[in-house]
């Protein structure tokens, strides 16, 4: 099974099953594939994908604000057995209620409080021990704020990573949006982030959203702003090993994926 080489930054994308043939034909352009969903039972291309690319486990394994069920932990272990991912990813999010009666079904950050920090730390350790691989955690942007936070996002992340030893998956469009809606620049927003913990970066585009009346994440090619930010972070992230174009959607085209990977490779001087 292929692996991401030590000492080199791999530029990759997410596995989009409808583009499996195109991904396989892309030669050495794509260094790895992140897996947002398990392969479908009728996905005839997946065995070839697994033989060809290092795979990164980036499924929804469960929200680490709450203890994961035995079923969720078992599923995480099975996925890791299938992918042999060099690290396993989850998110700093809390999107469904404890009784599972309501879910937002989308990225939504926890309150940045001592209680949530303790919950995330305890549950992350359990997940990491279960899958038997390093765990990286991805930052999640907020669109509005509650008058309840006890610390900044940066402090929450730094303390989490210091306490658990987990790695940081820094999603740059998320940072860009959080900075935008805080009214400051992205580099300023990142000033106190633990960039030395970053293992993987996500890049993607942003587009105007009609409901938000402002920008939000989009499955489009990363613009120059995001790629410049990626380079700026890379210079401060000695543990960085992978940059992933973060888009998966049935409507995603081959052209968008390949153009995004080429642009990212070019930004990192790898073309």
């Amino acid at each position, binding site marked *: 099974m292929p692996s991401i080489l030590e000492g080199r930054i791999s530029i990759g994308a997410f596995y989009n099953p409808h583009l499996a043939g195109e991904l396989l034909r892309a030669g050495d352009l794509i260094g790895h594939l992140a897996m947002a969903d398990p392969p479908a039972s009728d996905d005839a291309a997946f065995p070839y994908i697994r033989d060809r690319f290092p795979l990164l486990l980036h499924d929804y394994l469960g929200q680490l604000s709450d203890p994961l069920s035995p079923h969720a932990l078992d599923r995480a272990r099975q996925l890791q057995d299938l992918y042999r991912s060099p690290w396993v990813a989850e998110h700093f999010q809390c999107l469904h209620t*404890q*009784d599972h009666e309501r879910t937002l*079904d989308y990225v939504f950050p926890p309150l940045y409080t001592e209680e*949530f920090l303790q919950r995330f730390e305890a549950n992350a350790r359990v997940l990491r021990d279960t899958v038997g691989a390093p765990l990286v955690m991805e930052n999640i942007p907020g669109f*509005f*704020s509650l008058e*309840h936070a006890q610390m900044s996002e940066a402090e929450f992340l730094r303390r989490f990573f210091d306490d658990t030893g987990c790695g940081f998956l820094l999603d740059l469009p998320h940072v860009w949006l959080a900075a935008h809606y805080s009214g400051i620049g992205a580099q300023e927003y990142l000033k*106190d982030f633990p960039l030395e913990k970053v293992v993987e970066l996500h890049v993607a585009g942003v587009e105007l959203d009609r*409901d938000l*009346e402002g920008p939000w994440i989009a499955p489009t090619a990363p613009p120059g702003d995001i790629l410049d930010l990626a380079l700026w972070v890379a210079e401060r992230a000695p543990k960085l090993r992978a940059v992933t174009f973060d888009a998966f959607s049935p409507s995603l085209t081959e052209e968008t994926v390949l153009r995004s990977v080429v642009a990212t490779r070019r930004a990192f001087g790898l073309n």
Partner: protein
Amino acid sequence: MTTNYAPLLTMPKPESSKSDRDLQDEVIRYLADARARKKSSAELPLSPEQAQKAEKFGRFLARRYYRDRLARSFRYSRMFSSAIGRTAEQVVDGEFFQDFLNECVMGSLEAAQRVGQMAVMHMSNVLEPGVWWEELLAYEQAFFLQAATAEAESRTDIPRRGRSAVSCAFRWNLPEILTRLKSAQNIGNDLKKDVLLLFSRTAGGNIYVVEMEGSSELIWRHTDGARNVDQIASAVSLPVKTVQDTLQALSQIGAVVLPPR
């Protein structure tokens, strides 16, 4: 405490006794329920300005959710989008959807039923690609009901059907039609066949479509939330053990909810 992000930070209200996790649940419920957002945000530590932003975010989440579920569920009819000039997910950008966003409880069965009906109406008024078109849309609507209903099942004292589980009778062999559509094969009259399909979803979100016949169909039909196992067995004239085994199998695919053992 870091103060670089002053617009996002204030100290917690000292009088609050609920846990932070409980407060997060209240925020999730508020965002998911348009009617709750209409009433008041006074129970939450939200300034009026942030409440306005939360309203926008709630609408954004709902539109995104139903667009995604429609695209996943109406994927076979989507194959004809260039011919008919429509896709099911276009309804989320329509005028009617604005009214829906003002009222919906995201992930509820009621909301899934409304959006499913909107999608079928949108896709029906076209030059039909085949005489089976209406049935394909009915199949996708039933599938969508599973994909878009996220409410947890409440506990029960007697067997009852899963919240979104539904059986549909078709005059065409839908499973075989889907196989042929996937492989771009012609669909002929040889696929005319009565089939009864059961659509369901598990608590983990797995969706099942299974063909029902014989005793399983009888037992499903009589699992109405009013009869216990013995009464179902009596109604369908089958041994209690057969009914128990069938209900157990149906519960594993989320079609039936059983009392806790």
